[in-house]
């Protein structure tokens, strides 16, 4: 058992790192540029649970020794998970959300306040956290209406498993523009990008 756990840290990364990273990046870029569209993902990584393949692939594509990542305390204390991330990406893991370039949230219902993450500054609003938020599904929840850059008029999404105050949190996040966090909603179905510019309402 212990043996399997130790070796699994080294397994499940990209098989073709150069091309897989490019594929995943283009999918993330597409999702960020077109909020409201579900971008499908192939399972290019097999990270330890509770991380899903989409999360593992985004990490493998974008994290490295220049990035810092915040994990929920329950995940940060799992050597299999932190070991997989650090072996496959060399990323630093940080204890405070406001120090993080990225955050991985596996329990969407317990999403911390968006304000607890790095917001960037008025002069450097890019120095902010991108939150990878694992949700139950991208299309089984209550309908949300999206407006803003990247969206022709309106877009509709129905992710499930979001916290109750999600729309209010996103609205407050948008008020801080150009500061603010960016979100990637991920499930086994793929990815929806929610940049800080997006306006979200129930509908």
């Amino acid at each position, binding site marked *: 058992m212990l043996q399997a756990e130790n070796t699994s840290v080294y397994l499940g990364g990209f098989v073709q790192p150069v091309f897989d990273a490019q594929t995943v990046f283009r999918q993330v870029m597409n999702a960020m540029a077109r909020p409201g569209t579900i971008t499908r993902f192939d399972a290019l990584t097999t990270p330890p649970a509770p991380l899903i393949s989409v999360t593992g692939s985004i990490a493998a594509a974008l994290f490295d020794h220049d990035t810092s990542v915040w994990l929920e305390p329950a995940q940060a204390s799992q050597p299999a998970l932190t070991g997989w991330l650090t072996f496959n990406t060399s990323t630093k893991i940080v204890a405070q959300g406001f120090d993080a370039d990225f955050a991985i949230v596996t329990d969407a219902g317990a999403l911390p306040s968006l304000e607890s993450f790095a917001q960037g500054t008025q002069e*450097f609003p890019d120095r902010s956290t991108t939150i990878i938020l694992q949700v139950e599904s991208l299309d089984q929840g209550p309908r949300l209406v999206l407006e803003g850059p990247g969206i022709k008029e309106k877009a509709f999404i129905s992710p499930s498993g979001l916290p109750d105050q999600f729309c209010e949190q996103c609205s407050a996040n948008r008020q801080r523009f150009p500061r603010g966090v960016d979100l990637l909603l991920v499930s086994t179905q793929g990815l929806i990008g929610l940049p800080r510019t997006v306006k979200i309402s129930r509908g």
Partner: protein
Amino acid sequence: MNTHGELATYNFAYLDEQTKRMIRRAILKAIAIPGYQVPFASREMPMPYGWGTGGVQVTAAVIGPDDTLKVIDQGADDTTNAVSIRAFFQKVTNVAVTTSTRQATIIQTRHRIPEEQLGENQILVYQVPIPEPLRFLEPRETETRKMHALEEYGLMHVKLYEDIARNGHIATTYAYPVKVEGRYVMDPSPTPKFDNPKMHMSQALQLFGAGREKRIYAIPPYTEVVSLDFEDHPFEVQTFKDPCALCAATGVYLDEVILDDKGSRMFVCSDTDHCENRRNEGHHGHLSGQALEAQQ
């Protein structure tokens, strides 16, 4: 193992993976903050800065084996700059290249936006020499950054208004400043102001790379891009008196071409692909016969 002997000495798309990741992270932030200039650690490229190394680095970070690349300079695919950059990417990526706007998935450009409306599956990458629209007003980076942070764009309007006082109209015809999504004033790179309206609500994603100045910025699709102007002097694009001499197109951007040493000249589409398509479709300008002779 490696069937592409020539590629063996390079990583795919030339840049190392760490550099690509850094540029990719910058691109994602640029998309999330439309019109804001994200600093990035620009790399030396095997070509001079004047050749659009910022655009080249953005394309290199974005491009994959399934892409089809088009490179234009002043609207043409066959200038030295465009030919060299296209050859560079053929060598380091082996991707398909094209001169057809319609067939391209990535179009890298200097000085023009294609006449044909771009689609959702396309990315337009601009080579930018000076990304800071406020630079001519304020040479210090710390100050221009503060002006963007505080949305202090009054000086920019004063400058444009001085133009009107001096010339009776806004004399700026290239790199005409725009405001993106009602927030950031942005330099559209040295494209003619004729192309500014094409940036507004574009279906294609627009990415801008400035190599020497180490900045990346972006306009997501379906984003509001407004050229700065005044109520009594609204923004206007250049208009041309005659249609294209070769394909009779109107409402396109025309370049002046000298025909002989006696000073004969004609005005033709700057977008060579657009002009060629129109002629293939049977459109003929008043000099189309003559121009063909001149070429022979």
